[in-house]
């Protein structure tokens, strides 16, 4: 069987190299993460997140809202400003669906050419201006990828400094993993034609982030 033959070859090649305590050796390599990742003190986690999310390469926009209840009104303004149809693909999560969406057509699934979706991010990462989405029955993947306009809600308290903090927050063991963890940093882009940067390649072209400050 190929499996055993491959592993045997590997073990032979490594006979004198294997660590005696593999886990300890692996942990020692990442014991001081601040030495090898971008640190940003004295800038606050929130300021760093906003600066990165709205930077030239990430291209999102950020708006503070006082509470989740203020979301429908804020979304209404976005739709009006961009002259879009009042239809929202809404993540089927209780905290979103129980809000008052009167005046909008809401659907819980994105169509192939969906214009706009509103989804909740489970966390955000300040270092890179990224949003973190974990799949769940009320958090499907495609809602974050199909729409042209991606509107994201994130709680200010769930903005974490670094990617490692997000791993710690959700758990690093095999059992703690959901089917997928999407780390999304801005909008879909491509540089495949002469390295020129263009937005809206396959996924969203616009990203607007509502930061709930309560």
């Amino acid at each position, binding site marked *: 069987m190929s*499996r055993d033959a491959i592993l045997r070859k*590997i073990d032979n090649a490594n006979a004198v190299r294997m660590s005696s305590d593999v886990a300890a050796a692996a942990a020692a390599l990442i014991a001081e993460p601040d030495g090898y990742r971008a640190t940003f003190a004295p800038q606050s986690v929130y300021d760093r997140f906003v600066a990165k999310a709205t930077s030239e390469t990430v291209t999102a926009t950020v708006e503070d809202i006082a509470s989740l209840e203020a979301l429908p009104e804020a979304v209404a303004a976005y739709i009006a400003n961009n002259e879009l149809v009042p239809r929202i693909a809404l993540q089927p999560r209780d905290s979103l669906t129980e809000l008052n969406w009167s005046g909008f057509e809401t659907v819980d699934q994105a169509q*192939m*050419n969906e214009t706009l979706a509103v989804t909740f991010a489970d966390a955000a990462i300040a270092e890179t201006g990224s949003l973190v989405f974990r799949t769940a029955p009320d958090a499907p993947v495609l809602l974050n990828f199909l729409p042209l306009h991606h509107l994201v809600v994130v709680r200010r308290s769930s903005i974490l400094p670094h990617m490692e903090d997000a791993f710690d927050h959700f758990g690093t063991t095999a059992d703690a*993993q959901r089917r*997928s963890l999407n780390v999304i940093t801005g909008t879909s882009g491509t540089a495949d*034609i002469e390295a020129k940067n*263009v937005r809206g*390649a*396959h996924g969203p072209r616009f990203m607007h982030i509502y930061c709930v400050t309560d």
Partner: protein
Amino acid sequence: MKQTSHQFSENVTRALAEPTLKIALDRTTTLLRTRRAKVIDAFPEYAKARETAQKIKDHTLDNLGHYLRQFEENAIASGAQVYWAATPAEARKTVTDICKAEGAKTATRVKSMLGEEIGIGEALADAGVERIETDLAEHIIQLAGDPPSHIVMPAMHKTQEQVAELFAAKHKEPSEEQDVTSLVGSARRELRAKFMNADISISGANFLIADTGSFVTVTNEGNAELTTTPPKTHIVTVGIEKIVPSLKHAAVFLRLLSRAAIGTEITQYTTFFNGPKRDGDRDGPENLHIVLVDNHRSDMLSDFLRPMLRCIRCGACMNHCPVYAAVGGHAYGAVYPGPMGSVLTPAMTGLKGSKDLPNACTLNGRCREVCPVNIPLTDMLRALRAKQFDEGMPTPMTKWALRLWGVMATRPALYRFGTGVSNMALRLLARGRGKITSVPLAGGWTRTRDLPEPEAGTFMQQYKKRR
């Protein structure tokens, strides 16, 4: 793809004669180099990050058997099926068998170099499955019928004008405008429905996480998630060296990969996948198959090419290589071009059929300097040259020339006389124009470029005069 590394010099001659190729390469590599320099300058922790990345890879390679077993166990526990393939043929057969068992008709694919390496196109064709490339660059070269010419930007050899022509001819609703934004829009329209209706999705993985059984993809387009979510079955083909111990170890590489490849701090979409669709999930594949591919990686573990297994396929070495910038990726005639390819191709397909590759290098060392995992590319290329010599591979002409040089170099008076005469001869050929446009018997050198006029006198002559 059909390997043509054995006819490297013919390939180069053809590449140099192609006027648009140089334009495409210049436009792209210049931008990529500038962007990388800028983002690395703004990352004071870079040196430490690079050192850490190298150490993690070395540690993981030292314990590769342990980590692969751990990954396998966790991936199976997550609901995935895991296969092992020693050769590209075995990997293809595994993929073909899965497709046949599923009765699949169409497959959407996320670009991966490993897929190219094993010939995934062939595997799908054997199963009678239509292959739809979703990465924009792969889509371009699929329409053009070209092999990839770069590991991160496979369509680097195409100019914007050429892409416009191609889309106008092949897309159902091409755009009137020919600017890059419109071209991207045209591809978006073309591919949308295909994402949603494919039977199978195929991807590679940038990292495997041993202690969770997860695998990671990174894209800027978001095509990995759009491709792998709707179809019922997802097949991952991945090289065994992609493994890292844990999620946090992967984070170290995510910071380096995008910076080195395209000059951004992180890719737009970084996804950690763990098993197939769970109970209650509204989307995601029902079946997940992971094919772990060796293809000589385990051989490389026990020779001087071992450090090459640290490679994270960022492409920085080729973006900074003067040879690559002059001839482009196709001239190398293999899946992996540029400096890293000149090391990998001989390792994976034998030195005999690729003996020009280690020599297509000026040993300027830029590749190693920009490599985010500090792979000693030039040392390895030099070692491959030595190996070639030991195995008696150079042509009689090369051997003869080296012997002649040996005779000259060990006799200083003769050497000085010889270099003095050739210096005079070259100055005569230049006729005071500052450049030499043709040299008798060396047409291969001057056909595509000029030789600069030499200084008045050899180094030794000038040194004596000035002393």
